[in-house]
């Protein structure tokens, strides 16, 4: 479990997974405000993510008397009501207040309901951080699936569904896999029908969105025997290493794919030769080590001298995926340098 004061709520993380399951509903067992906060956040990100349909989030709407006398009856009523709708499964996410008063959420979910009712261990902040919510939701859904014979596909695991560039990052990984002749199986979980989830155990390889998902990767390897790559590629050399790792894991010859990608990277760097030999300073709201490393590598390749000098050009850094991500970042650098 991650313990960070700024790690966000498990509910938001879990909902970022469960609301991407197309024919399922998510119940937040707690006060109405918890569901509103999250619904409002998802609603706000929808236009950016070009998602047309609103997530289906139901609150058990606990009030003061439920907090005093227990909320299990309210949860049962909510599950009953949701099961009567056109859903194939129901996810139940618990809030911190429910964990504190000691409602037995698993027991209520374990009753005889007409569709699978899946408790996702969340407990609001008492269950960890946003990332714990993501991981626990993925594992809860994975545990419903049975192992099956591995095919040629590669599955994508744990995309950041609230990320602005989620589709573009996915497209970049698909492009790299295509260089190796590998098809994508399922996006676990992004815009995914429950009917397609059984393909989770049929991949020859899983690719995790980032290393924070390693517990999920380990769980899937244990359950289905599927090996995994721990992260999408973040920079130029990392993209080449990514191709190599996948080729090794899938036991295919990656030399041709590697050659094509190296040529593309050379072309990209040549396109941005005009911003080389300048001085810059990295800036941006998200400066995680991987992004900084990728940005530094690109700057070195273009002979941009990076310093802490505030007089230097501010070079925006954001989390990038693959060679395409680096190219987009370099466009932003060019705009900043020419501003």
């Amino acid at each position, binding site marked *: 479990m991650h313990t960070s004061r700024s790690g966000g709520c*498990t509910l938001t993380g879990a909902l970022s997974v469960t609301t991407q399951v197309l024919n399922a509903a998510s119940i937040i067992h707690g006060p*109405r405000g918890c*569901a*509103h906060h999250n619904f409002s956040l998802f609603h*706000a990100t929808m236009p950016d993510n070009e998602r047309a349909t609103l997530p*289906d989030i139901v609150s058990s709407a606990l009030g003061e008397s439920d907090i005093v006398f227990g909320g299990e009856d309210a949860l049962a009523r909510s599950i009953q009501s949701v099961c009567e709708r056109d859903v194939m499964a129901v996810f139940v996410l618990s809030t911190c207040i429910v964990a504190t008063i000691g409602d037995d959420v698993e027991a209520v979910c374990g009753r005889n309901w007409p569709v699978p009712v899946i408790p996702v261990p969340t407990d609001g902040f008492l269950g960890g951080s946003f990332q714990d919510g993501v991981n626990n939701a993925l594992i809860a859904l994975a545990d419903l699936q049975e192992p099956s014979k591995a095919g040629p596909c590669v599955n994508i695991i744990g995309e950041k569904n609230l990320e602005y560039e989620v589709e573009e990052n996915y497209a970049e990984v698909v492009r790299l896999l295509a260089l190796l002749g590998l098809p994508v199986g399922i996006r676990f979980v992004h815009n995914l029908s429950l009917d397609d989830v059984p393909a989770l155990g049929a991949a020859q390889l899983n690719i995790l969105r980032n290393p924070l998902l390693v517990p999920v990767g380990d769980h899937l390897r244990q359950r289905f025997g599927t090996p995994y790559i721990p992260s999408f590629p973040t920079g130029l050399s990392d993209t080449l290493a990514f191709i190599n790792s996948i080729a090794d894991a899938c036991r295919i010859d990656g030399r041709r794919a590697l050659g094509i990608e190296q040529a593309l990277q050379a072309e990209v760097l040549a396109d941005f030769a005009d911003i080389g030999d300048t001085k810059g300073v990295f800036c941006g709201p998200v400066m995680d080590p991987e992004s900084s490393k990728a940005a530094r590598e690109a700057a070195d390749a273009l002979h941009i001298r990076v310093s802490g000098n505030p007089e230097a050009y501010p070079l925006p850094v954001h989390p990038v995926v693959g060679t395409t991500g680096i190219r987009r970042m370099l466009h932003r650098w060019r705009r900043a340098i020419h501003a």
Partner: protein
Amino acid sequence: MPECDNPLWPCAMTGAAAGLAGFEGMTVVIHGSSGCYYYPTTLLHAPLHGTFILENEVIFGSEDRLREVIGELTGTGNRIAVITTCVPAILGEDIQSQLAEHDVLLVDSPGFSGDVEAGYTKAISLLAPQTDAATDGVNIDGVCLIDPFFKGNLQEIRRLLGLASVPVATVFCRDALKKTRTASIYTIGTNGDFRSSVGEYLGGTLGFGTLRATFERLGTAFEESDIDPVLRELSQQEEETVRICDKFLRRFDPPTVVIFAGASYAEFAAQALDHYLDADIRFLGTRNPGGTSRYPAALVTGLTQVKTIIGQHNPDLVLGSSFERSVSGNRAFYGITPPLRGVVRLAPVPLAGVNGTLFFMEQVLNACMDKSRKVP
């Protein structure tokens, strides 16, 4: 309480923060987890602080963490308000005693205690504003950070009071904290859903009729005032509104309307559209329990209810938040309720006062005409 699909309205904790964070000289601390802190911060665009408690502080007590955070915030001259979220509210800790050395305003307003209005009202009642007969002017009420029109309303009512030579006393809740100790004995409102209950209420400012009555009362209460300029402007602008609406009705049928908003704004919108456009007000879905209405009205808390009501009444025009917009299809829409995502809002736009009604009618007419032009 029955389950609720996609709840539309924030919790009491957010309401308490919306009230207190509007006062200059007040430092607001959300006592709870980071997840609870992030929502009011992004919604209110106000400086808020948090204790960001973790599990071990729930088990072993949050006193040390609370002291650490409060200690970092003292010394600025600001009064500190601590708003409890759900879990700290039931832990049974005597926070007031723990922080006895600080002059802390403790607001026990957890999410399960109610909706945003409940927290707002509680926070103001604990703040215990006082009136002072020696204070000149009138208080402006209902200025709440959660209201997308709060800046515009305040600007407009200040303008009208200036025209009438009536000074502004204390603005609830957008003023210096110390002015809550010397509020005027008179108050006028903007958004009636966020009432402070301070002083004698002389009336609201939503709609020309209400505005006229309120300024006539102000004229009586303040001998030095001159309300004639306001009444003149009001008559001129109402005449212009009638003219424009009449012109609209020569070409178009009156719209059928459903409205989703706080009870105060919903009633204003319904009356304005009924009066000037002869609109068919089919339903008011209020976010909070309002008073009686001559229109069909009920409390609407979730998005499924909204979809059902829109489906049942099949209106030409929907007023509401961006939640409603997302399920309104191709109907004409105008946003009067938070949140209003997906639109750029820079200028302070009012709903209250003369310009509030003008702006509202203008937006509705344009939305209806745009919609009519798109129909083949």
